[in-house]
């Protein structure tokens, strides 16, 4: 009787301990998620706050800030500029970066190792250095500071990202696929579009999305190279000096929404129909 009781109390105790353990795990995970998403949640919440002051609890809900946003021409122009820069810079890096990665992967040429290191090096360079050096170069070449200069600057900085990602994927693609394609009579371009590109598709999309995101919220390089034009992060940054406005919260919320759409789009695009292994 006594032994039985002792036993059951012991199992009760270990259950209780297990519960604590599970609870602390749960709290830990919540803390991490909170750390990641709480700032965003706060941003989203305040974008609907009907008072200018950032006090909790919110006094009421409103869509005023969004309406104000839609009338702020400067902000809208900055947003368009950012999209324009990010799309152009991403396209430019992909157009240069993919062939560069293929050249690195497929051809042996003298100085290849050095070339590869030189391409990858800018990843480690702080944006401010890239920005200043580009500024000096553009000035000495007599180029005007403009959004186009920003695009070139971003493309240069992002090239290493694209080449790294695409090159890593190409390394896992058997060389025999391109050889088989050539053997079957395909030209170099046919091989690229019909065989190589479909097989590195996921890496190209991934690299493109990453490049887009990095370019979209880039400040240091933009700061040096943009003339009078403003990009969205630059605009936000400059208005912040006049204090945190709920309009900023609203534009932030819109960007979050856009990112979510992008993430879903990429998941859809990256879903591999063939589950392709290399056969």
């Amino acid at each position: 009787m006594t032994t039985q009781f002792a036993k059951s109390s012991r199992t009760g105790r270990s259950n209780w301990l297990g519960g604590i353990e599970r609870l602390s795990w749960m709290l830990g995970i919540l803390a991490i998620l909170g750390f990641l998403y709480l700032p965003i949640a706060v941003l989203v919440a305040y974008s609907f706050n009907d008072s200018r002051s950032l006090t909790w609890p919110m006094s009421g809900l409103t869509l005023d800030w969004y309406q104000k946003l839609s009338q702020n021409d400067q902000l809208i122009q900055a947003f368009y500029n950012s999209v324009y820069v990010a799309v152009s810079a991403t396209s430019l890096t992909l157009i240069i970066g993919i062939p560069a990665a293929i050249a690195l992967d497929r051809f042996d040429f003298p100085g290849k190792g050095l070339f590869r290191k030189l391409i990858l090096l800018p990843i480690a360079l702080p944006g401010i250095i890239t920005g200043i050096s580009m500024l000096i170069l553009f000035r000495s070449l007599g180029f005007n500071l403009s959004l186009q200069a920003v695009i070139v600057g971003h493309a240069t900085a992002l090239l290493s990202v694209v080449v790294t990602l695409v090159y890593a994927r190409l390394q896992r693609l058997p060389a025999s696929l391109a050889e088989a394609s050539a053997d079957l009579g395909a030209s170099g371009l046919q091989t690229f579009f019909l065989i190589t590109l479909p097989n590195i598709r996921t890496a190209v999309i991934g690299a493109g999305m990453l490049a887009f995101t990095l370019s979209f919220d880039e400040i240091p390089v933009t700061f040096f190279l943009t003339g009078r034009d403003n990009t969205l992060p630059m605009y936000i940054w400059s208005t912040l000096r006049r204090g945190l406005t709920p309009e900023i919260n609203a534009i932030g919320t819109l960007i979050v929404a856009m990112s979510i759409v992008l993430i879903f789009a990429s998941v859809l695009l990256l879903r591999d129909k063939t589950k392709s292994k290399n056969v």
Partner: protein
Amino acid sequence: MTKIIEIRGLTKTFGDVLGVDDISLDIEEGEFVTLLGPSGCGKSTLLRMIGGFEEPTRGHIALDGEDVTHVPPSKRAVNMVFQDYALFPHLSVGKNVGYGLRVSGVRRSEVISRAREALSLVGLEDRYDASPHMLSGGQRQRVALARAIVRRPRVLLLDEPLSALDANLREQMQIELKNLHTKVGLTFVLVTHDQTEALTMSDRVVVMREGKIVQIGTPQDLYENPQTGYVAGFVGSTNMFRSRVEVGASGPQISCFGQNLQAPAAASALGGRDTLFGFRPEKATLLRGDAQAQNTLRGHLSDVLYHGQSARLVMDLVSGQVVVDMPITDVIGTVGLPQVGSAIAISIEPHKIMILRDEAAS
């Protein structure tokens, strides 16, 4: 018979490594030729140069009388089956097979019908829409074959096409490959390091070593008359021994691990010289009871390796060992397998002893 491939003085170096060393070779139209040799002897390099994937350092390749030494793979009427099959993972089986037609601008309907035709040639017509990763190894192999023959090339190159298959499937595919060769009537050039594969399938075998050709011949020719110790050892197994040739009144005499043997008549010309000889394990006969025979070797049985339809007897001689293969009925006879350790005798007819040349390399 017309020559379809002419190779002259072909050499390929990789830095200091000599991949292929001054090879000349003619291949007849419709032939099944196998390049045989150990790993690293340059078989793939030679094949890849025929396909156009490697630029020769020196020498020439002509296809159908036309110099193609510097013609890119896409412009050669030669197709290749890759060792890893190199099927395009993102295309269906049918699209893989039709690829070569599609890129050369053949009409869509014709691409499909010819791809189906090629697939049915390898017995996979019902897998047209399957994805390559859904196929077994043997099926992938067949798709790769269909894809390579769909353009009706003049020559089909195959780089160890069966090496990724398990033993049973490999044997089956050997037969299928041979049948396909007869059916389509193309010239096949196959690379392998498996001598059984080479002997089973080929019209002619090219034995290579360290970038050079050491012997070319029909499978039977190579087996019966290997010219060097290297070929004798690589194609089938051979008992080899070295001996001085003494020419006496009864013809040339040699010594095999201390015992006297009558050498083939041709050995007379080598009188007094130290020469390499050999005989195939199945060419000797085991002497049972007190049977007497010419040209015998006497020794002790040191091991019996049972192979099912035959048994290999390992016999200790004074200064060496020889192996002898016997059909299992002979070995057992009426008295059963000889006991390990017992004294046995074998006889070998003089004309079954092969005179082998030393090659420079060994």
